[in-house]
C-alpha cells in the first residue's frame, strides 16, 4: 500500500487503471461535460508543470476560491503533486477573513473562479505579502486586467506543456517524492471565537479516514456524487477529492449555485451529502407542491404519505409491519414515493447523509418513509470530516451514529466527546498552543462537543461542551439542545437560548422569512420587510404557539419562559454566526446584552441598535424598539 500513500499517486493509478471512466463532470452551456481519469490526469499534470515553471515548490501553499469547478479541484491536486498544500477558502468570507487566512497560511498562489473573485483578491493584493501569482478560471471580463502576476488557467497549462518538453519526467518524479506525512490540506475552521484556525490534514489523515469510511459505508466506482457544498469545508475536500480519488467515482459540478436543485434532478446522484437546511428546503418544496395539487392528487399523496410514515415508525421500533400496510407501501412506491424521489433527484441515491447540525425528526422521518436512505453522520474538520455514521438499518433522528471502524471514541468528564484515530489532524497551523488544547498527550482529540454513548453504541451529541451550563438552581442547561428543538419549527430560522446562571430559560428568535412570509400572505397580512414582518403581533402569536409546542418536549425547568423576535436574521457577515451557520454564542451574548437584561429584568420592551455589516465591509445601524414576550402568561390572557 506504500505505493498509494498520497493523493497524487492515486491519481496516477486511476489514470492507469480507470482510464476513460468518468472522473469529473461540469455542467457548462446547459450540457454535462465529462472528463475521464485520463483527462483529469492530463489537466492536473499540465497545471502542475505550469506551477513548477512559475517556481511553485514543495511545501508551498495554493488557495482556491469560487464555486465548485473542475479546474479549482485540479489546481488543488496539482499543488499536492508538487508537494504543495491546498488551502481552500469560503468565497463568501468578508475581506478581512480572507486576508487573514491567506497571510496566515503563507499562500503563494491563488486560483480564483472568475472576475468577481479576482476583484476580491486585487482589493487585498497590497496586504498579501507572500502572494506571488493569481490564476483565474473564467476569462470573462478579464481583458483589461493586465499584470504579470495574473494569469489564466489555460496560460499556466500552456506554460506547463512547454516546461514539460524540457523537463521530461518532472511530474512523476515530483509525485514520487511525496510522502504520506506531507500536508495535503489546511482547512480553516470558522471558529466560534477569535480568528479562524487552520487545521493541518496530511495525506495519511485523508487516506486513513477514507479507509474507515469505506469499511462503514458502501462506495462504488460507478457512483455519482454532486459536488455543490463549499470547497473550503472539509466534507467537500473529503468526498469530492479524497473519496473520489480513492474509489474512482465521478464528481459532478453543478452549473451555478442557483441551478443545484435542477442539476440534482437531472443527474440523480447515487451518493448525497447535504446539511439539514437542504433537506428542510426539499421537504418544504414537496409540501408546497402538495398543497397546490388538485384535490384527488392531494388526497392520494396524503394517504400514502401517512402510510409510509406509520410504517417507518414501526420499522424504527423494530416492530413487524402488518400486511395491509405493506401492500399500501408497495402501491405507494409506484404512485407517490418513486415519483417524489424522482422529482427531488433522489431516485438513484443509495444513501444520503445529513450532518453538521441536527435535522428535525419530522423531516428525517419523511425522507426515510419515502424510501430515501437518509442517515446522520458526525465529524469535524479536525477529524477529516468523519467520526461516526449511522448504519442503514439503524438510522434514526436522534443519534450521530456508530463510530466508524478504526475510530476510538470515549466520553471524558463533563461529557466531552474524545476521538482517537489515524484521521485526527496533525494540529493547527502556526498555533501550537491551540493544538495542545485539543490533542492531549495520549493522542485524544477533544471535540469540544458534549455527548454520550447510548445503549446501542451510538454516539449522541447534545451541545458544545463549553456551552453546557446550569440554571441558577443548578439544573444543567444545554442551550443548543433548546435551540435545535425550536429550530425544528418551520417558522423559526435561528434561535439563541439563554439560561446559564439565570433563573429560567429565554430565547431570541429569528423568524424564517419565507415560511412566515407565506403564512402572512395566506392570512392577507401585509408586510414590507423582515423587520416589519417580525414585529407583527400576529407573528408574535404564531411563534409563541410554536414555542409552547416545543416546550411540551422540554423538561419543566428547561422550558422557554420569555422570548423576543429579532428584527434581522443572524448573519455570518455580522460575525454573529460562523460560515457554517453556528451561533457565535459569546459574541452574540455580548452584542445583545440589552436583550438579556430585559429578559431577566422583567421589562416588556427593549431598544435594539443593530449594526449590519455588508459584504464589502460597510456598516449601517438600525434602531428599533422590540417587544419582549412571555410564553405562558400571555396564554392565560389570550
Amino acid at each position, binding site marked *: 500500500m506504500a505505493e498509494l500513500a498520497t493523493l497524487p499517486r492515486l491519481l496516477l493509478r486511476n489514470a492507469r487503471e480507470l482510464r476513460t471512466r468518468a472522473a469529473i463532470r461540469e455542467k457548462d*452551456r446547459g*450540457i454535462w461535460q465529462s472528463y475521464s481519469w485520463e483527462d483529469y490526469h492530463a489537466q492536473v499534470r499540465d497545471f502542475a508543470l505550469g506551477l513548477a515553471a512559475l517556481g511553485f515548490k514543495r511545501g508551498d501553499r495554493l488557495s482556491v476560491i469560487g464555486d465548485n469547478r473542475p479546474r479549482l479541484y485540479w489546481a488543488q491536486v496539482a499543488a499536492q503533486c508538487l508537494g504543495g498544500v491546498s488551502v481552500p477558502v469560503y468565497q463568501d468570507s468578508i475581506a478581512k477573513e480572507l486576508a487573514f487566512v491567506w497571510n496566515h497560511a503563507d499562500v503563494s498562489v491563488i486560483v480564483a473562479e472568475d472576475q468577481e473573485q479576482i476583484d476580491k483578491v486585487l482589493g487585498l493584493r497590497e496586504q498579501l505579502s507572500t502572494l506571488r501569482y493569481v490564476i483565474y478560471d473564467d476569462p*470573462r*471580463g478579464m481583458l*483589461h486586467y493586465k499584470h504579470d502576476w495574473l494569469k489564466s488557467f489555460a496560460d499556466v497549462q500552456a506554460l506547463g506543456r512547454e516546461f514539460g518538453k524540457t523537463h521530461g519526467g518532472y511530474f512523476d518524479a515530483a509525485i514520487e517524492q511525496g510522502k504520506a506525512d506531507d500536508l495535503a490540506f489546511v482547512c480553516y475552521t470558522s471558529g466560534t471565537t477569535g480568528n479562524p484556525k487552520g487545521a493541518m490534514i496530511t495525506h495519511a489523515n485523508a487516506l486513513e479516514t477514507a479507509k474507515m469510511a469505506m469499511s462503514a459505508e458502501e462506495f462504488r466506482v460507478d457512483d455519482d456524487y454532486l459536488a455543490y457544498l463549499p470547497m473550503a469545508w472539509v466534507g467537500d475536500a473529503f468526498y469530492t477529492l479524497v473519496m473520489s480519488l480513492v474509489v474512482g467515482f465521478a464528481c459532478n459540478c453543478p452549473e451555478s449555485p442557483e441551478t443545484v436543485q435542477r442539476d440534482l434532478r437531472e443527474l440523480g446522484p447515487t451518493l448525497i451529502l447535504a446539511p439539514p437546511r437542504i433537506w428542510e428546503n426539499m421537504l418544504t418544496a414537496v409540501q408546497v407542491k402538495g398543497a397546490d395539487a388538485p384535490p384527488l392528487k392531494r388526497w392520494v399523496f396524503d394517504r400514502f404519505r401517512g402510510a409510509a410514515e406509520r410504517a417507518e415508525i414501526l420499522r424504527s421500533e423494530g416492530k413487524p409491519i402488518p400486511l395491509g400496510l405493506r401492500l399500501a407501501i408497495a402501491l405507494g412506491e409506484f404512485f407517490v414515493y418513486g415519483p417524489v424521489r424522482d422529482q427531488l433527484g433522489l431516485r438513484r441515491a443509495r444513501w444520503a447523509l445529513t450532518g453538521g447540525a441536527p435535522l428535525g425528526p419530522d423531516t428525517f422521518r419523511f425522507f426515510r418513509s419515502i424510501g430515501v436512505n437518509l442517515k446522520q453522520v458526525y465529524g469535524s474538520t479536525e477529524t477529516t470530516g468523519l467520526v461516526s455514521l449511522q448504519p442503514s438499518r439503524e438510522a434514526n433522528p436522534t443519534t450521530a451514529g456508530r463510530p466508524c471502524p478504526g475510530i476510538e471514541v470515549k466520553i471524558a468528564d463533563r461529557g466531552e466527546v474524545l476521538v482517537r484515530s489515524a484521521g485526527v489532524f496533525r494540529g493547527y497551523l502556526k498555533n501550537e498552543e491551540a493544538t495542545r488544547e485539543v490533542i492531549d498527550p495520549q493522542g485524544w482529540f477533544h471535540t469540544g462537543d458534549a455527548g454520550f454513548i447510548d445503549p446501542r453504541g451510538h454516539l449522541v451529541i447534545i451541545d458544545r461542551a463549553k456551552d453546557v451550563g446550569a440554571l441558577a438552581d443548578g439544573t444543567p442547561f444545554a442551550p443548543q439542545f433548546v435551540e435545535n428543538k425550536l429550530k425544528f419549527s418551520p417558522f423559526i430560522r435561528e434561535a439563541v437560548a439563554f439560561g446559564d446562571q439565570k433563573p429560567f430559560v429565554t430565547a431570541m428568535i429569528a423568524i424564517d422569512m419565507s415560511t412566515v412570509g407565506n403564512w402572512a400572505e395566506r392570512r392577507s397580512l401585509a408586510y414590507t420587510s423582515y423587520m416589519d414582518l417580525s414585529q407583527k403581533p400576529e407573528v408574535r402569536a404564531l411563534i409563541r404557539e410554536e414555542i409552547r409546542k416545543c416546550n411540551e418536549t422540554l423538561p419543566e425547568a428547561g422550558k422557554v419562559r420569555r422570548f423576543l423576535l429579532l428584527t434581522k436574521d443572524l448573519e455570518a457577515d455580522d460575525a454573529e454566526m460562523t460560515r457554517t451557520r453556528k451561533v457565535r454564542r459569546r459574541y452574540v451574548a455580548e452584542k445583545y446584552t440589552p436583550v438579556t437584561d430585559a429578559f431577566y429584568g422583567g421589562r416588556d420592551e427593549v431598544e435594539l441598535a443593530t449594526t449590519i455589516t455588508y459584504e464589502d465591509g460597510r456598516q449601517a445601524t438600525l434602531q428599533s424598539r422590540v417587544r419582549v414576550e412571555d410564553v405562558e402568561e400571555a396564554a392565560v390572557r389570550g
Partner: protein
Amino acid sequence: MSALVEIREVSKAFGGVQAVTRVSLDVTKGEIVSVIGPNGAGKTTVLNMVSGFYHPDTGRIALESRDVTDLAPSRIAELGVARTFQNIALFRGMTVLDNLMLGRHVHMKSGVLSSFLYWGLAQKEEVRHRRRVEDIIDFLKIQDLRTRPTGSLAYGLQKRVELGRALALDPKVLLLDEPMGGMNQEEKEDMARFILDVNEEWGTTIILIEHDMGVVMDISDRVAVLDMGQKIAEGTPDEVRANPAVIKAYLGEPKASAKEARRG
C-alpha cells in the same frame, strides 16, 4: 475612419410637436455613447429613428456608410442593429430560452417545412443557434432561468433577458433604451457590468439612453445631451458635466429667471 452610425441633421415632428430638430451624432465602432436629457427631450425618438421604427422628416441616417434612413425595422435588424425597450417587450408567456432563440430569428435560414421535419440542415442549424444562445445565457448568468416563463421573472431579470434577446441577434450596434430604469442599485451595477462586458468581449457598439447620471458618466466613452429636441452638448463625460448649457437644462435657470419663465 468613418463612423459606424452616422446621424445627420435628423428632424421629426408628431403633428404640431417638433420632437427632434436637426440632431446629428456620429458613433464610432466599439464606442459606448449615451444620450441623455430631461423627459421629452427626444431621446427615444432618435433611437426609434435609428432602429427604423420612425423615419425622419428630414435628414439622413447611415450604417457603415450605407443609407438606412427609409428602411423597414426588420431590414435594419438584419443589418445588425438590435435594441431593448423602455417598457420591457418580451413574450411573457414564453420561456427565457424561447425568447432568446427568437432573437436568433434573423439568422435562421430553414424554411417552415424543413423546420417542421427537424431533420438534416434544419437540425444542425438549430443546434448552432442554441449554442450561441447558451453562450449568452452563460454570459448573463441566467442558467437557472432557462425554462421559466419571462412573465414570472422579477423586473430586473426581465431587463437582463431582454438584453440577452438583443444580443442573440449578434448585433453590430446595440440600442438600449433605459436599461437600468426602475432597478435598484445592485441591479444597476450588474447591468452596467454586463454592458461593459458586451462592449469589451464582442466589441459591440452601444448607444444607450439612461437617466442615472452616475452610471452614464461611469461607462460612456461619449455623452450627447438633448433638450427640447435639440442637441445642446456632446463630449466626454467630464466635458459634458462641466458644460453650462447642460447644467442649465438639468437644473434650470437661477431662481429669479425661473419665475420669469413661468410668468411668460
